[in-house]
């Protein structure tokens, strides 16, 4: 070895873990954003998450029923080793981090010293900076299971408390943070009240139905709700989830198998009912958005429903066009997780779903299958305008966001 040897510099972050600052975690994404010049693009992340249960005593203090609110308070102050009050779900079956391999999915224990705003605002800002996005739509996480809650009234109590807490305590911290109000969909009258109550609340850009539930979306009791949402001009989003206790998914022994199917399956069922019962014909101005199921299910369902519909038109008499046409013209989709091992299939999918106008970028940060904006930016078959549309302009049109970014 000669005298020209220079010392290599030790990287300040040797191993990323649950205490790593989000800015360090996403440093490579930030570098990519700067290289690609995202500062000149509008980028809207239509699906990111925070862990609302970290703030659960705060959230449950917004429960309006005084008895239930007090029960939550006592539970949190006295009960040892219990999950958050009132939440149903899969308790210890959350294997998303693959046994510690993907630490950001487990927790974000990073230091936050800024006390001017809620901790979730700080974490969200860090993620927005890392991903290079201008707007981030914030969804809850464990509450995605609420549609399976045995007490329908608890879905009402908790979703209302969460919506109020989020819009009063968190969203005002940053104009780039927006949300879709969580609807207690198992109680249509209460869901309707929620739509009316939050229609003009700052930061609310639409309505969210958590998709893991067994109520059919075409039930007559939802028609007032759909009419009211249509009148607001804001979209209704079906946010997918999994439900391992579903009898067919219970045959899957791996999180990999169950999660791959579960996140698509719930939206496959709802979309089938949505289309075959002619909801787009009944409410032509109601925009539906299908979130976090990926995209590969859409061409499958289009072909499948078209094929069967032609043989059994009398069972879907409201339809005036092929099911696939409603799915491409009336429905919007988020791209995450972007399945792209076969680029030809992806190109065909983009074509079938009218991606240039109906596809929206979503990161799903901080979950294990999150996507950076590069999943769209790097697609070889898209021109620049299509990329700009998918990364932000389509969302700006759908949600009425400022095309120059938040003020």
């Amino acid at each position, binding site marked *: *070895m*000669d005298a*020209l*040897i*220079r*010392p*290599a*510099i*030790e*990287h300040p*972050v*040797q*191993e*990323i*873990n649950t205490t790593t600052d989000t800015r360090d*975690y996403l*440093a*490579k*994404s930030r570098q*990519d954003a700067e290289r690609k010049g995202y500062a000149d693009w509008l980028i809207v992340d239509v699906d990111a998450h925070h862990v609302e249960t970290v703030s659960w005593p705060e959230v449950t203090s917004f429960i309006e029923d005084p008895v239930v609110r007090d029960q939550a308070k006592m539970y949190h102050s006295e009960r040892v080793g219990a999950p958050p009050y009132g939440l149903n779900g899969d308790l210890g079956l959350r294997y998303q981090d*693959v*046994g*510690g*391999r*993907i*630490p*950001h999915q487990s927790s974000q224990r990073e230091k936050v010293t800024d006390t001017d705003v809620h901790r979730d605002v700080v974490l969200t800002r860090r993620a927005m900076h890392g991903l290079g996005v201008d707007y981030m739509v914030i969804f809850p996480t464990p509450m995605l299971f609420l549609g399976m809650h045995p007490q329908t009234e608890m879905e009402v109590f908790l979703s209302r408390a969460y919506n109020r807490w989020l819009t009063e305590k968190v969203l005002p911290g940053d104009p780039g943070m927006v949300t879709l109000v969580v609807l207690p969909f198992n109680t249509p009258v209460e869901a309707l009240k929620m739509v009316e109550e939050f229609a003009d609340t700052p930061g609310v850009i639409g309505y969210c139905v958590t998709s893991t539930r067994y109520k059919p979306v075409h039930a007559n009791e939802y028609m007032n709700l759909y009419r009211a949402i249509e009148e607001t001009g804001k979209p209704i989003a079906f946010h997918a989830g999994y439900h391992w206790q579903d009898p067919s998914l219970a045959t899957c022994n791996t999180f990999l198998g169950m999660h791959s199917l579960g996140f698509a399956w719930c939206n496959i069922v709802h979309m089938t009912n949505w289309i075959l019962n002619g909801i787009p014909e009944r409410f032509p101005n109601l925009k539906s958005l299908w979130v976090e199921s990926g995209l590969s299910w859409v061409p499958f369902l289009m072909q499948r429903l078209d094929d069967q519909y032609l043989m059994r038109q009398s069972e879907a008499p409201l339809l005036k066009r092929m099911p696939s046409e409603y799915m491409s013209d009336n429905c919007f989709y988020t791209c995450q997780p972007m399945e792209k091992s076969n680029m030809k299939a992806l190109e065909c999918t983009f074509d079938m779903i009218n991606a240039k106008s109906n596809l929206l970028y979503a990161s799903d940060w901080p979950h*294990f*299958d*999150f*996507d*950076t904006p*590069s*999943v769209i930016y790097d697609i070889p078959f898209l021109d620049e305008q299509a990329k700009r549309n998918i990364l932000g302009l389509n969302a700006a049109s759908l949600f009425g966001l400022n095309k120059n970014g938040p003020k």
Partner: protein
Amino acid sequence: METFNVGKIEEFEDKSKKVVTIGDEEVGVFRLGKEFFAWRNICPHQGGPICQGRIFSLVLENIDDKMESHGRIYDNNKVNIVCPWHGLEFDIRTGEHPGNPSISLDPVSVQVDGDAVYLLIEGKN
């Protein structure tokens, strides 16, 4: 080609790593037994910080002669670095994904001379 000193051999425990920066490049240097390996800190999946992930032994399915499964076990002779962004794993020796070898890490030349470990980076001169 330029040479960079990444430290003494004794600074590396078996199955450990050090991530270093050299100009605008980041490289992970790994020790397995007496051997050293080095890979660029860019994941082929979505460009994540692969070398800043955790190290795990390869997982195998424990199948018997009758093809019945008895759960999963570690193969401690095969050691992977796991990308912290989405969990793709790569064999530290070969740089290949265990399920799809066509997905692999970008190698950097590493040399041991005396008691120290060096990286040889192309295009730096």
